[in-house]
């Protein structure tokens, strides 16, 4: 069980996020939404222990993760927002690096890596440098590195970035299957259609503060919108998107 209690983070005097609270039980998928600069990545970094909150705490099974970060991270799978990988390592070498750092036994690690590479259609490219991987292939490597040690908690920051249609469809089903197997999933994304489909609960952020939370159905009813897109626009965007689009076209066609 993963819980955030009053998470607040200041960068100097700048407030990034304020009083974030949620509680995620095994099998739940929390969709974490918000526009650029709303504090999503800061929250993710606090959840995985790369940033220490200014106030509040992250609890895993009731214990502050800062008390035993290493122990907590053994249960954690993480897909970062950007696929920053060492370009001169091959896909297989990168996964071996992660597996070894996670302390996985060598035979189990090798078996998992081979199986995952095959399932994610990367096996033929396993000895090729990551520098020549496409964005989608790098994203698949990150997904494998997050899943390979059978984590209890998955923290996914824009996991579909760069994935092709088939991979994205597989991934959506994968999230649901993992959730059905009792994994706790924190899903941070801009792709509302996917969030709507895979997440059991929602948390919408704006300027570092939570403006809506609850199950997808609860939020829908509370806002009075049928689609998540409608909810998002009503809560987060105070601009007329249709008007902005028209203004852009005006500039495009102007002499």
């Amino acid at each position: 069980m993963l819980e955030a209690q009053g998470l607040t983070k200041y960068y100097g005097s700048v407030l990034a996020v304020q009083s974030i609270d949620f509680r995620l039980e095994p099998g739940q998928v929390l969709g974490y939404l918000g526009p650029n600069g709303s504090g999503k990545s800061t929250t993710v970094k606090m959840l995985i222990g790369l940033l220490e909150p200014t106030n509040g705490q992250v609890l895993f099974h009731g214990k502050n993760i800062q008390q035993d970060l290493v122990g907590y991270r053994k249960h954690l799978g993480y897909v970062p927002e950007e696929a920053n990988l060492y370009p001169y390592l091959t896909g297989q070498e990168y996964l071996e690096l992660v597996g070894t750092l996670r302390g996985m036994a060598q035979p189990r690690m090798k078996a998992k890596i081979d199986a995952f590479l095959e399932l994610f259609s990367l096996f033929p490219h396993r000895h090729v440098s990551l520098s020549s991987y496409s964005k989608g292939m790098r994203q698949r490597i990150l997904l494998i590195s997050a899943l390979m040690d059978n984590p209890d908690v998955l923290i996914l920051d824009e996991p579909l970035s760069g994935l092709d249609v088939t991979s994205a469809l597989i991934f959506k089903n994968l999230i649901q299957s993992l959730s059905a197997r009792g994994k706790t999933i924190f899903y941070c994304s801009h792709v509302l259609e996917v969030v709507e489909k895979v997440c059991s609960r929602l948390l919408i952020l704006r300027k570092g503060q939570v403006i809506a939370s609850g199950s997808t159905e609860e939020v829908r009813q509370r806002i009075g919108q049928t689609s998540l897109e409608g909810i998002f626009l009503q809560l987060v965007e105070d601009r007329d998107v249709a008007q902005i689009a028209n203004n852009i076209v005006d500039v495009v066609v102007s002499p």
Partner: protein
Amino acid sequence: MIEGARQFFRTRWEPYSRRPFPTLLRVFIGRVFHGGGDSGASEMDVGLGVILILLALPGVMVSLLLFEKYGTLIRWMRGEGAFDPFIATIPDEYFFVVLSMVVTGAAAIWRWDALLLDRRDYTNIVPLPVSLRRIFLGNLAAILLLAAALTLDINAASFALFPVAVVGSQDSLSLFLQFGAGHAVTVVLASAFSFFAVFAVIGLLMAILPYALFRRISLYVRFLLALCFLVLLATSLAVPSFLSETERGATNAIRAIPAVWFLGINQTLWGHGNDPFFAAMTRTALFGLGISVTVALLSYALSFRRSFIRIPETAEVGPLPRSQFHLFPTGLMDRTILRDLPQRACFRFITRTLLRSEAHLQIASAFIAMGLVVGAQAIAPAFRANTAAAIHRPSEDLLSLPYILSFCIIIGIRLAFEIPSDLRANWVFALWIDPDALQARPIARKVLLTFSLGPLVPICFASSAILWGLESAFLHTAIFAACTVAFVEILLLRFRKIPFTCSHPQFQSHSALIFVAYLFGFLIFTAYIPELELWSLAGPWRVTLFIPLIAAILLSIHQYRKQMLDMDKHLIFEEISPSGF
């Protein structure tokens, strides 16, 4: 006049500079100095000014040293009377030719990836309404401008200072001009030859090989070229003695050295064109320069047509897979020195980064190559003695060879440790490494000793066993290994990071002091220790002297670390203390 220039700039140059071709030129010049390739070299982007100063420094320093050599007062004190500057300066002129070729060649090797257009240029520029011919000419113009800028920058100091140092005190303007012009033309042509020779190699490889294979072997070709330039540098020690009229017949090999060709041009311009040797060398130099420029331009055109234009077609091919060959016996190492899993992961990451990341490999290779040259120079006297007996008994020169190589390898790798590799990717270590459990120093120690003692100990033992017998070989190898271990411990005194994962330290006020300390360390490690070893090899009991010496060093280091604060031992990912390298 200044106002007129400003006016001209505003009315003519500014509008012209905004047109497509000058804009392309600016982009290509920028990529030459600030990027190109996909090596992640942006971490080491040091700026144009610093680059130009660094390239000009060798010429400045060598020229300044010559003021002492050719100063009127000093020559008078040495009892040297009138001298012919055109004869007396041949060794120095040869050195300047070599220096200009080596520095220009090294700069061209360093910017290897940035000279030819790549996929990034294709993606950004070709879709725009710019003709391929304009792109071709734009990059060619940028390369020619780079060649001109490098040539002028590298030789600028010697253009002015060398003639002043040698003939500045003589009251003859024509002598000064003849000397200065002869020198300037020579080094400029030598630099141009060197640049275009490297460019021709790149262009030819790019034109002949598939792009993926070119990328794969380019590192090794660059290393080979760097070695060639270092060998050329080493010739400046021996070749001048073969250039006098009486010695030239001793060997024909000097005719094959490009720097000697350009010395021929120099001697022709200095009025010795009637000398058959220098006349022949002048012709060879001009022919060689013509060939290098022609091949470079043709291969550039061919590679543009064969590689750049066909980039979209080659996109599907992808690079060749990496070889599964392991430089080290990984299974054995895993079972012995790398049983701890995080250590094993870090060790593999470090060795792979060292061998694959271009920036790191370049630094380490430069130091290894320097070790090879200095080592060759060190043992040359033993071989020049020309007697078989000279190498069949231990001498200080021969004993120093493994120390020199070891010092250069270790310092090169240690310096490379400080250069981060794609810092944004280090989250994987920040996330999965326990900073309290992982000790970075043992990992760094294992890497340094694997790369230094790994190859050197067997070679050292085998060669000394063949030359001096088993007993001397055992003692020499044992002393060398023990001293290397102690040296590594000293270097890693306050080391507390995973190599390549930490931001690199800012220039510290005591960096100059550290540089001097390294020079002093070089002197001790490669001169005094071999001297002491030579003395100790004369009587086996004397070798025991090394035991308390090494033990004292290791004990002192141990005591020092014990009194360090815990916070100074904590693993870091950001360099904030001034105690780094």
